[in-house]
């Protein structure tokens, strides 16, 4: 197979802070330095993008020395925490911005799956928007003509195709947007978090289509997502970014394990920011039975949440999921209380699981905060506070086989036949 995408020594620096002040004079200085063949006086090499440490200069390297190749027909995931450089990498791959150093080479036409409704005009009908959106993605009118019926059929909105899209629901928006991008005749498809919206059924359909695109049509897919389950499903290999550098590159399952494992980031605590208007989850902490995020099967596990309410809200709802390393949700406890908050401030909620029944694996927490009445969704915090479960105090003579199950239910055995002779028991 030929190489579809080749990235060499790719770096991208951003200027942070006040860009507006003194730019004209700085620009002149920079220009002078460039003219004399000197290095940019405002660029310092070697600083790493770490938001917890305040850099010396106001230049931040969003990506630093990235090298990789993607084979034609491969589906590759890009994972990493917020600010790791995922979006920047995608922007460089799609030519939305240029690198500071290094080079991106792509064979074939590239299409990006756009965020819901980007480039959609509310006054235009679905039909007109298909053409407009297709053209924005680089299709010629003839190509869209050819694919039109297929696009409409996939989106499932044929009845409303001549209705202005301002009357569409957000679900219909996504369907249409996805359908246009997925049916494009491009060799490379870039997908960024779009599947977060839309109903479960359509999401499944989209994932199926993406799978189809890679395995049957031989197109290359680069997939950026927080939805690790989707990454596992769609991709064989993945790239893990950390603070703008490539941390790991390999088989998706392995990379995700690194991503979630405690070696990668020793943080067992999630600390979130306070928002001015909407409630937010400011802390999540897993209290495991043993130190170093080790939870022993059968022992007590507590998960603590701090929720900040800038204004009083009636009836908040918090629920969280515990995911295993295969990205399967194992449990989904909820806290639904109409009396929960009557005043503004921070509340701490603790969920106690007296006897954990998780099987041997690495787990992470995903929490969602919303409102019962208005059905509003405030915040989701995904895949934080990784912890490990082991079987130290549960005895059995046979080995604990990896991935044998996800969960052990309480059980007991009864022997109904007297022919069996138990050892030591007579």
């Amino acid at each position, binding site marked *: 197979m030929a190489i579809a995408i080749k990235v060499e020594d790719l770096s991208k620096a951003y200027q942070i802070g006040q860009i507006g002040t003194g730019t004209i004079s700085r620009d002149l200085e920079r220009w002078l330095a460039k003219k004399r063949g000197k290095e940019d006086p405002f660029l310092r090499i070697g600083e790493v993008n770490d938001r917890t440490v305040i850099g010396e200069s106001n230049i931040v390297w969003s990506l630093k020395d990235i090298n990789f190749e993607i084979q034609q027909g491969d589906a590759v995931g890009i994972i990493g925490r917020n600010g790791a450089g995922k979006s920047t990498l995608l922007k460089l791959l799609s030519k939305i911005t240029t690198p500071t150093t290094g080079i991106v080479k792509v064979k074939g036409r590239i299409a990006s799956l756009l965020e819901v409704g980007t480039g959609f005009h509310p006054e235009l009908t679905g039909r007109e928007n298909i053409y407009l959106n297709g053209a924005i993605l680089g299709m010629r009118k003839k190509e869209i003509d050819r694919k039109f019926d297929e696009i409409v059929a996939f989106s499932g909105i044929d009845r409303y195709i001549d209705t202005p899209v301002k009357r569409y629901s957000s679900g219909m928006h996504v369907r249409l947007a996805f359908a246009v991008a997925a049916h494009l005749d491009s060799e490379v498809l870039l997908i960024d978090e779009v599947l977060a919206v839309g109903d479960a059924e359509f999401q499944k359909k989209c994932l199926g289509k993406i799978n189809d695109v890679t395995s049957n*049509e031989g197109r290359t897919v680069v997939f950026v997502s927080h939805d690790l389950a989707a990454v596992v499903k769609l991709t064989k290999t993945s790239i893990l970014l950390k603070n703008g550098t490539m941390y790991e590159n390999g088989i998706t399952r392995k990379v995700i394990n690194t991503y979630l494992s405690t070696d990668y980031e020793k943080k067992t605590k999630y600390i979130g920011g306070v928002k001015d208007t909407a409630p937010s989850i400011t802390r999540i902490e897993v209290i495991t039975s043993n130190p170093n995020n080790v939870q022993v099967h059968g022992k007590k596990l507590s998960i603590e949440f701090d929720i900040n309410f800038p204004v009083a809200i009636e009836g908040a709802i918090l629920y969280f999921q515990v995911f295993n390393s295969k990205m399967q949700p194992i449990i989904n406890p909820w806290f639904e209380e109409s009396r929960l908050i009557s005043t503004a401030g921070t509340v701490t909620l603790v969920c106690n699981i007296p006897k954990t029944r998780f099987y041997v694996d690495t787990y992470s927490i995903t929490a969602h905060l919303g409102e019962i009445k208005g059905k509003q969704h405030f915040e989701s915090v995904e895949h934080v506070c990784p912890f490990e479960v082991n079987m130290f105090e549960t005895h059995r003579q046979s080995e604990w086989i990896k991935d044998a199950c996800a969960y052990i239910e309480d059980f007991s055995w009864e022997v109904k036949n007297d022919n069996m002779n138990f050892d030591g028991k007579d």
Partner: protein
Amino acid sequence: MNTTIGGNEHLSEGRQGEGEQEWDMINKPNAHILDLNIKEVLHYRDLLWLLVHRDFVSFYKQTVLGPLWFFIQPLFTTITYTIIFGNLAGLSTEGVPKFLFYMAGVTCWNYFADCVNKTSTVFKDNSNVFGKVYFPRLIMPLSIIVSNLVRFAVQILLFFITLLFFAIKSGSFQITSYALLFPFLIVQMALLGLGLGCIISSLTTKYRDLVFVIGFGVQLLMYATTVVYPLSAVPEKYRLLVELNPMTPVIEIFRLGFLGEGSFSWTLFAVSIIETFAITVFGIIIFNKVERNFIDTI
């Protein structure tokens, strides 16, 4: 499905044979200053027409008066100018009916000014789309120029109707052979609007405060153009300034062609063409330079 797979395998083999170095897209820090991606722009020409269609439909649907608005604006501006500059200030119109004289200037100037104003905010207005997907950004200003052309066509029609009305009333047509230059004048106005708009939009991505200067600046520029007065009435002191303004010959030739009054000199015309060309080329070059990573600063 089987044929697709077979086809693809064949394709990839063929490509491998072509060698490693053939890439369809290369994204690197610096491109040559004259690398204007004309080929790419041509590939996206369907997008240009669809954007024009979008602008037209959305304008038509969103306003209460719809296309009527196209007529109202130049009509009211012309009436205002006729009263203020013609009647109150008593500026000369070289014997041409005041209403026609101002309408000719206003119609042409409006097209140019609309092109500049709309193009100058193109990065800001489209940052949402530009930040999500790549296509040659030049398509956007080009679509603005063409969209405005539709509007200009409607307004010029209004002008011709008015012209016909005055001609019947006075019983004489004043059209001269200079009217044949009209298509050329349109192109010149479009290019001037495009070039100047591109320059301004490129600068405003970096120096935001420039935006405030623009609307004001375009208005001031109108008074340095022969919109509300004839070139012959300009005092010697300011003459050179007005003559060097590339929009001056455009409006003068337009008036000479359709109203029979105006100044024409090949020298001034040639100078304005050179200026237009320079502004357009410079505009596109600077626009292409900025489009490469403006999304970082906006």
